[in-house]
């Protein structure tokens, strides 16, 4: 890209001056976006440490008491435990179910392949509420409502297709000759999977797993529909605190919970960015949804 710009410069400086306003507009847009982003994040953080904050630039007194208060009041040990348990269970199950299916979709042609692909795509396209409400009704009918199991199951619905859609192009990249060579040397399907594919697939599985983890920790709609007080994840607990009986909870309590949530997410994100390049990953997803 840089070379094109260089070709352009001898044509005269006038064009560069004329192009400037558009550049300014773009940077202005980005700046406004960041003002909101930084403003939103930092006001929640400041608020969570404020003893009281009303009508001033900065709160007059700072305290960390809200964290302890929120931790006790909403039983965050339990909430965090449930969030972790659900996230790990969803990641493990969706990888176990999704990767073999992705392998077949990547390597094989069979009748009805397009139909199967469409079937796996549906939960990603349809709004979560649309399938979430019938699904939650079924869960309540089976007596699973408000259990952790139900929370895990509903979160699997978008996660398994997500793993399939991210892993299929990833598996397509792996040279099939390697597998064929292993088979020629007498490896069974199990050997091929465990000794050949698994090591090659680890980066892709990690990327998909981390994205599923982020989505599950952040998933509100589906979890909210089936969870109860003892099976709430952190997002749902924050939502319930924000909406409880006309906002009776102190704002700072909610803020400190929100900060805890962001901190959890940031840790996951930092780990995630060590393994994956976001733009590249989306491009892979795009390729898969195009065919």
């Amino acid at each position, binding site marked *: 890209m840089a070379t094109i710009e260089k070709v352009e410069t001898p044509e005269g400086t006038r064009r560069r001056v004329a192009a400037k306003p558009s550049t300014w507009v773009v940077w202005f847009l980005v700046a406004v976006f960041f003002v909101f982003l930084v403003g939103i994040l930092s006001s929640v953080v400041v608020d969570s440490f404020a003893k009281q904050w009303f009508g001033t630039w900065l709160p007059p007194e700072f305290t960390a008491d809200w964290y302890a208060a929120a931790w006790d009041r909403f039983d965050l040990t339990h909430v965090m435990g449930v969030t972790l348990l659900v996230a790990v269970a969803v990641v493990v199950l969706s990888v176990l179910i999704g990767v073999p299916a992705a*392998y077949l979709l990547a390597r094989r042609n069979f009748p*009805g392949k397009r139909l199967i692909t469409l079937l796996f795509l549906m939960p990603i396209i349809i709004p979560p509420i649309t*399938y979430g409400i*019938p699904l939650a009704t079924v869960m309540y009918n089976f007596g699973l409502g408000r259990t952790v199991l139900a929370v895990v199951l509903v979160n699997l619905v978008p996660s398994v297709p997500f793993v399939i859609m991210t892993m299929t192009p990833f598996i397509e990249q792996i040279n099939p000759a390697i597998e064929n060579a292993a088979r020629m040397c007498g490896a069974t399907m199990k050997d091929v999977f465990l000794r050949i594919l698994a090591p090659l697939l680890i980066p892709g599985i990690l990327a998909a797993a981390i994205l599923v983890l982020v989505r599950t920790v952040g998933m509100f709609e589906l979890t909210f529909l089936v969870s109860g007080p003892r099976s709430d994840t952190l997002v749902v607990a924050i939502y319930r605190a924000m909406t409880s009986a006309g906002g009776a909870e102190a704002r700072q309590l909610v803020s400190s919970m929100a900060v805890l949530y*962001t901190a959890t997410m940031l840790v996951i994100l930092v780990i995630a960015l060590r393994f994956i390049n976001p*733009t590249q990953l989306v491009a892979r997803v795009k390729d898969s949804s195009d065919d």
Partner: protein
Amino acid sequence: MSTVAPARTPGSRKDGRSTASLQHRLAERGIDRSLLMLLPAVLFTFALFVYPFAYGIGLTVQPNPDVVEKWGGGIFANYVAFFSDPFFRDSVWITMRLALPAALFNVLASVPVAFKLRGKFRGKRALTTLLVLPITLGTVLTAQGLLIFAGRQGWLNRFLMDVGLIQEPFQLVMNYTGVFLSLVISGFPFAFLLISSYLSGIDPSLEAAATTLGASWFQRFRRIILPLLAPGLATTFILTFVLAFSVFPSARLVGDATGETRVMALMAYRAFGEQIDYPMASTVAILMGVIELAVIALVLLWRSTFYKGSTGGKG
């Protein structure tokens, strides 16, 4: 859909046992025992997606007696109620009024930004990372942040008033604007990511060729980039629209849940969780899906009038 998929997988297993030649012939067409690897995913999708979905559609034609009594229409009473009761009917318009502009804004704003940021420069990765960050914030935290930051006492209004741009604080939350802002904050990074990856898929030599032939900046954009980018724009619009269409927590937390932002998702949840009217809840939910798919179909139809083919691959 439901007839073909399950018939095939067990069928292949049964046929595999019968005769060697049949097994061979099936294998030639791509059916053999390794297809069993699909079984967990297919079973799972049927148990947790197809079955509940069908069950939900079934529920919509089993309305509660009081709905039938009030609106008539027999087994279709829920649908009659939805389209006759302005309380329900208006939520469609309310949802559209929120989701369409938000999705459109996110797509249109990310095109110039992605365009400017596609070259190589210092700190590009850092900037991209920062733009991606809000994806992990989640709607609930964004809502809480907006309430504090853009509220009447918040930094934004305080700054604008101190600078003298405005006299009275802007009402930015607890209304349409609040939900719109929250949709942009969570949707823009997503649209930006997709559009940049589509842009990077356009071969730069095409543009270079146009430049050598004397095409101006605008001509290059209009004649080269835009036609190649149009399919990507359509896909991005669909995906951001899906996100905006099913908005639920922010409509409740930073919106006006009984008025301006009484979106369909909220109506569905209210019927489900507050009135415990499962048939009505399913009706709203299914109609939500139908309307969303209709919009997607329209966009895809529009997209099919564009250049179809590879956008030139990466680099």
